[in-house]
């Protein structure tokens, strides 16, 4: 376990909230959800879990996420398998962080 990165998450409000959301959605203990944990590959998230997580993020942070927005944000032309490899907790944290920043900038 990468203690340095884990501390970054612990010190990061968004990260803490996301770990909690993922833990609820997958009924997995929070200590097993680390920054480099891959949500689909390592935690066995199903498509319905991704829907669940997306909805909980929307409710928690108060913005809507488009149907393919998370997928598209990683890059065009990627296969679902490639996406699963890259879809980590820290990636999701960064996605939410950027989303909040862009919404704040819009205001």
């Amino acid at each position, binding site marked *: 376990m990468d203690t340095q990165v884990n501390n970054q998450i612990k010190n990061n409000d968004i990260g803490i909230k996301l770990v909690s959301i993922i833990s609820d959605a997958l009924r997995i203990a929070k200590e097993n959800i680390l920054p480099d944990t891959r949500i689909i590959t390592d935690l066995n998230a199903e498509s*319905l879990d991704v829907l669940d997580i997306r909805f909980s993020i929307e409710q928690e942070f108060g913005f809507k996420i488009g149907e393919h927005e998370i997928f598209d944000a990683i890059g065009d032309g990627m296969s679902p398998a490639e996406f699963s490899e890259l879809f980590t907790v820290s990636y999701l944290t960064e996605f939410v962080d950027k989303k909040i920043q862009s919404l704040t900038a819009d205001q």
Partner: protein
Amino acid sequence: MNERRVVVTGAGVVSPFGAGKDVYWSNLKEGKSAASLITSFDVTDLPTKFFAKAPLTEIDLENLIEDRKSVKTMSRASKFAMIATQEAVKDSGIETDMIDPYRFGTSMGTSGIGLWDLEYSNRFLELVLNSVRSETEKEQAFSKVWHNMMQNLHPLTPLKALPNIPTAHLAIKYNARGNCQTISTACTSSSQAIGEAYRQIRNGYADVMIAGGSDSHTNPNGIVAFSMLGVLSKNNEEYKTAARPFDSRRDGFMIGEGAAVFLLEEYERSKKRGADIYAEVTGYASTNDAFRLTDEPPDAGGSIRAMELALECAKTNKSSVDYINAHGTGTKMNDKNETYAIKSVFGEDAYSIPVSSTKSMTGHLIAGAGCIEFAACLMAVKDQIIPPTINYEVPDDLCDLDYVPNFSRDAKVSIAQTNSFGFGGQNACLLIKKI
């Protein structure tokens, strides 16, 4: 090839008395009522203010489910089904990973309207109210409601509404890759689910089946819907004794909820592994009245035929039936017609067969009725005790059989029968025999 025999080697129940087959059976034996006044939602303007709700919160139910992640796509009825199945599988002592998965199936009777669980109903109403803040907004309100639902309802909610989801959860958990069926025929659903599972094994398509049913209508929509059809008792004053099948004062049924699930197994296979056997499933038939949706035909033709075909299937002499668990809803029509049908089938023998309606205690579980009453038959055969029809005081001239009034009875029960009849003219009958 000899005809394959089918036995029940495991049972699990969630009843209005709580989780577990023992809780269910001990209450039936003691002739207890599960009736309670409705406090979980406002019934001020509803004609019926009582039901038979299982004393289990959603959290209680989730805590009883082994695979915690699956609960988020489970309606209340679906949770009941999983809990009852877990108990049945454990009770059977079978090692599910030793079963050929392609000869292992699932068959459940369900209603599939888990969308109307209380939580959803309240959320839905809230969204509607939020969408219409003034009289002038009413015209655009509908599209606003749909939009608000899309934005604010949990996206997994629709999965709770599909009738086959409870069954699918069972198939996934136990790796049952064979025949998987969900039968939704109102009040006969789970009797047919058990009967069709029996046929799967008997006819060689499967060796082991998880079979039963589950339902929950203890929510505002359930009370409203059944009230509109005029089938619920409105005897709120005497709610504890209002479910009184075959009594001349009966005025309808009480809504119950729950599940019962069984492990059905091919007889030779169960013998080989030294399983304890509750009983053999020997007869099953289902028919339709092809008459009207909610009226039974005056000649009770469909229900008579279902009983006769089931007896024929079981190769059972009519006089050897020791107990009938009646559909016995407690509506004026059902109890009169069912009595007539039983007399038509059994002739003079009808008067010497104990016939009881356990709905007097549990209420009517709708899609879960047949299976929970099948459980009562299994227990009757196992313990040689016939559960009573409680709240029976004033006889009705048109209902003149032995309804086992108010107290359970020690009796020799080798062959038991259960009847189920439902809206849509559905009829089903199951027979079991002590081994």
